């Protein structure tokens, strides 16, 4: 395999990781229009919960399941108790979720300490495939696979169920939706919990790649925000393509313009927004 195609593959895999990280936010910010600055901490929470279970000698997959389940429950209560009060009020969302991220991140530090950790790659997926003269980790291929699966899931939910339409309508005019006989509150709670679950899931799956440390939440958050914005709010397709584009460009950029690497993602975002102020696939405001 030539150097460039190796880099491309790395880039795509990396982009998939981005997509996975941002998937939960695609729903909560993109579709539900909730500026969720706690996304990174939910990610972190998922990883740390799984870490605890794995330390208790639980199987990776069981730990994964439990972590996702628990973050979903957490998200559920978050929505029911707090987020519910701030739909449609962006600035209050900012304050609320910012405060939440402080609380959760500090709680994580309190419970799990400040030391860094990683999640082990499950045995099944450890090792690497050699492609030509470069080795490619199996686990990354797995992440690519999961990323595709997530994209499919989102596609299904969007096109084959009414959930997507209910949420969008609920954001437009919540009262009207409820007057049409739909329990918007319930749907929003469920979808928020689902978004939280996705954040938790990506935390667990990202754990072996990114590691776990205090301060990871804000890095993850910024990355996710950028992915969602480049793709255009409300478009999982945009996030998907945007994430992969970032992954590839960033990977190639590391080799070609190493001095710019601190800025690559930001520059990509800036250029995209200058050319398309509503992101790649964002809906134009009617």
């Amino acid at each position, binding site marked *: 395999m030539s150097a460039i195609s190796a880099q491309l593959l790395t880039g795509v895999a990396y982009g998939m990781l981005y997509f996975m990280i941002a998937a939960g936010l695609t729903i909560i910010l993109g579709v539900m229009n909730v500026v969720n600055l706690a996304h990174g901490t939910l990610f972190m929470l998922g990883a740390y919960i799984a870490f605890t279970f794995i330390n208790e000698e639980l199987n990776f997959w069981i730990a994964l399941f439990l972590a996702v389940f628990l973050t979903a429950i957490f998200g559920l209560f978050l929505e029911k108790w707090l987020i519910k009060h701030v739909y449609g009020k962006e*600035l209050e969302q900012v304050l609320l979720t910012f405060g939440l991220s402080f609380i959760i991140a500090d709680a994580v530090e309190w419970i799990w300490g400040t030391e860094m950790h990683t999640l082990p790659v499950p045995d099944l997926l450890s090792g690497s495939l050699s492609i030509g003269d470069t080795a490619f980790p199996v686990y990354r291929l797995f992440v690519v696979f999961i990323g595709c699966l997530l994209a499919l899931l989102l596609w299904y939910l969007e096109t084959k169920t009414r959930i997507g339409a209910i949420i969008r309508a609920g954001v437009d005019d919540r009262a009207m939706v409820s007057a049409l006989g739909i329990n918007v509150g319930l749907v929003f709670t469920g979808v928020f919990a689902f978004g939280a679950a996705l954040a938790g899931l990506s935390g667990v799956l990202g754990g072996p790649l990114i590691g776990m440390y205090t301060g990871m939440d804000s890095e993850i958050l910024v990355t996710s925000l950028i992915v969602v914005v480049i793709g255009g709010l409300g478009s999982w397709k945009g996030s998907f393509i945007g994430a992969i584009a970032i992954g590839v460009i960033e990977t190639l950029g590391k080799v070609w313009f190493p001095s710019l690497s601190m800025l690559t993602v*930001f520059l990509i975002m*800036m250029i995209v927004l200058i050319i398309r102020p509503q992101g790649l696939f964002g809906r134009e405001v009617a």
Partner: protein
Amino acid sequence: MKKLLLGVVLLIALVFAMPLVLSDFGINLATEIYIMAIFAMSLGLIMGYGGMVSLGHAGFFGIGAYTVAVIGQHVANTYLLLLLSVVISGLIALVTGAVFIRTSKFYFLMITLAFGQLLYVLFWQLKPWTGGADGMSVSAVMNFGFGEIVSPNALYYVMGIAFVMSYFLLYLFVGSPAGKITRGVMENEARMSALGYNVRVYKLLVYTLSGSLAGLAGALYAYFNVFVSPDLSSWMFSGQVMVMVIIGGVGTLLGPALGASVFVYLQNFMSTYTERWPMIMGGLLVALVLAGKGGLIHWLQHGRHFLVFRKQTGKAVSQQPVKKGEAVH
């Protein structure tokens, strides 16, 4: 007009009375709070009167600060340096704003985030001029022609006066035709355009104004802190000012200033009392949202109106909610 004068006189009295009750460190902290208040008011202007929420405002603050730090190595005149800070940050706001205002809402937030980050990296990588990530000391000393201003008390008065002046200018702007029109643009851009306004001019105007004011805050900060580093433009700092503005009260002028003082105060002392300060800080933010009156300033207003209503019993109590931004001036 009379109300305004009264307000300004009150503010000045406050500024001058504070040192009587404050410790050395208290004066120092108050000085910093004035600077942050100017900064927060500048962001509050575009957020509350222009509907533009920026996550890159610290970029302008950094420009102002680095202008004093870098150019101050060669130029001593304080007037000139302050002017340069304001002009440079204003110009950059004008140029970048022309591009950024094409985006709206969340996209605007993110493009300004990128802008702030750009400056952050720039300050970080132009090591020969800026000292890079390690930052640089500021050699310029404030001097308005009455001798060097270095003592904590002298700096305190300068920053206090700067704060009152900034407030005064913003007050004028907000009540002026351009200010009211900007407010209208924030409410309904399309209709303003159909009423015959060139909305981009107003958005750009307020963005530039806000950028140059942030630059001024940064310049003052450089004098105060005598050390600058890229962190001045980091998105975390931008995020912090944003929080100051929101907790203080969006859509008012003094709200952000109040938010700045509360935030800086808490940030400074909370960690002294507890290791778990982020949790408490987070808890306070959440509680503030749940209490649901908007910013702190609205609490004050509420208190004040309560008093006023008590006094004028008999008079019908207006059912209209307090008009944002008016009652506090």
